[in-house]
């Protein structure tokens, strides 16, 4: 059947198919924004700084999508689990009294066991419901976030800089990280071109950190286990027939995804400078899912380049539209555009036929 379909495709159709129509449109739109930016009077260098900054905050979260997509678990709508582990790690590290760069390291260290625990349980669950992962993942995310809402109030945190000011019980919904790990990465080896009159600041540390993780991910996919993971995602029956313990590989991928989610949120916080608790973790899902899809990933295929391209495109869109479009039509439609683009992208990905995914 797929043969006859292929025959019908024209060359243009093939281009659209390989690159994806929505992706084509988004890329075009972004180029348009870049061209329009100087015309509307906004400083291109500032824009680029913003995009790079946003990229450095979000890229790790997007990277967290990759392992699960590779192993055929679909889009990780359960990323809040990873985010929650990261939040637990971050808050506990602060609670323990760490400050500065050390608190960043400790946040990652403390969040790791949580990520393994949550990811393990979540992975075991997903193994029992193969085929229905995405819907369940979404609701596992919701349930765990609302459960942790209760926990943020119940866990006896004591550190005065993070608990609620008036009662002293329960964490604040948002607190600043200035004395903890705000900007510990982005200020590292920072390149600031302002002295030369260009308003361009490159958060080298954050980028390097992402590059390191991306390299590790790339390397992992080149190892024996990584190869097995790709095969499981590509054709689980083949993998099973080749003696792979499909469930174990999937479990591993979920734990990896969750752990990367945990690191991702910590990196995000260090860039953003604040920790957001309670319902905030839920807001991290869609941007990450949409970014990896815009980067050209499908429900069961994703690469590091998808992550990089996707995050750049998506964050570019998010940061550029408010200034450029607002300047053009004097209305801030960026929020709506973001919602339509990110969700439209997921809808598009879901309606595309995926081969090999059963």
């Amino acid at each position, binding site marked *: 059947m797929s043969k006859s379909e292929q025959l019908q495709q024209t060359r243009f159709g093939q281009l659209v198919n390989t690159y994806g129509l929505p992706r084509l449109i988004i890329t075009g739109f972004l180029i348009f924004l870049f061209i329009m930016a100087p015309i509307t009077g906004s400083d291109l260098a500032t824009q680029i700084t913003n995009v790079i900054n946003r990229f450095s905050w979000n890229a790790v979260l997007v990277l967290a999508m990759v392992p699960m997509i590779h192993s055929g678990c679909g889009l990780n709508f359960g990323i809040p689990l990873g985010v929650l582990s990261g939040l637990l790690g971050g808050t506990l590290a602060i609670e323990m009294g760490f400050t500065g760069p050390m608190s960043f390291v400790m946040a990652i260290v403390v969040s790791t066991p949580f990520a393994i625990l949550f990811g393990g349980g979540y992975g075991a669950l997903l193994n029992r419901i193969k085929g229905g992962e995405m819907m369940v993942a979404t609701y596992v995310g919701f349930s765990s976030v609302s459960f942790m809402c209760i926990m943020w109030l119940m866990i006896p945190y004591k550190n005065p800089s993070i608990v609620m000011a008036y009662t002293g019980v329960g964490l604040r919904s948002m607190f600043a990280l200035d004395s903890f790990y705000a900007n510990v990465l982005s200020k590292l080896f920072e390149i600031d071109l302002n002295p030369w009159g260009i308003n361009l600041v490159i958060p080298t540390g954050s980028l390097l950190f992402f590059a390191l993780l991306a390299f590790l991910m790339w390397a992992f996919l080149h190892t024996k286990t990584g190869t097995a993971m790709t095969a499981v995602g590509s054709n689980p029956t083949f993998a099973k027939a080749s003696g792979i313990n499909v469930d174990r590989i999937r479990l591993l991928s979920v734990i990896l995804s969750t752990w990367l989610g945990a690191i991702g949120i910590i990196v995000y916080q260090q860039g953003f400078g604040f920790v957001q608790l*309670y319902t905030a973790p839920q807001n991290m899902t869609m941007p990450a899912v949409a970014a990896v899809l815009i980067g050209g990933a499908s429900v069961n295929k994703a690469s590091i380049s998808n992550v990089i391209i996707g995050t750049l495109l998506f964050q570019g869109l998010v940061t550029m539209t408010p200034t450029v479009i607002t300047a053009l039509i004097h209305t801030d439609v960026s929020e709506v555009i973001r919602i339509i683009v990110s969700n439209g992208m997921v809808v598009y990905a879901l309606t595309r036929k995926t081969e090999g995914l059963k």
Partner: protein
Amino acid sequence: MNKKGLVIRLTALAVVIAIAATMMVIGRGHTIYFDNKTVENYQGNEYKAFERVVVTVKDEEVAKLGKRERGMATWIGQNFKMILEITEKKGDEPRIEEIELTLPYNMDGIIINLPAYLAGLPEEAWLSEFIPAPEPEEDEEDPTIGDGLGLEGDLTGDLGGDLGGEDLGA
């Protein structure tokens, strides 16, 4: 589709549209204000405010008006009915009048000057449109829109909402 089926369907559609049109007419809501105010100079004449008017709409007493007072009622549809209990001068026996009048469709707020109306003056004398005073500019109302992915809304109150716009763009 056969012809009969088409006719039936078109008829059904017409009926639905007719219902909609009817609803637009009979459901048109108006706010009616009653003024018990002296009309000082209408074509050279003066029409004095009544001492006291009690306005009853749909068996409900909506206003007791002294001089220079204004009352209010709401009414759905164009055929407005009310019962007035009028005390013309101090000490007079109140007289009761039942009044029916047709309201203009396109007016939301309608002011009726009772003394002028009861004197049988033409419409322009007793009817005027109520134009609400421009509301004090509120602080720029920012429609807090998210994509609703969070638990916000009426579920958890505003705990998640005080984060400003930053989290939305993230």
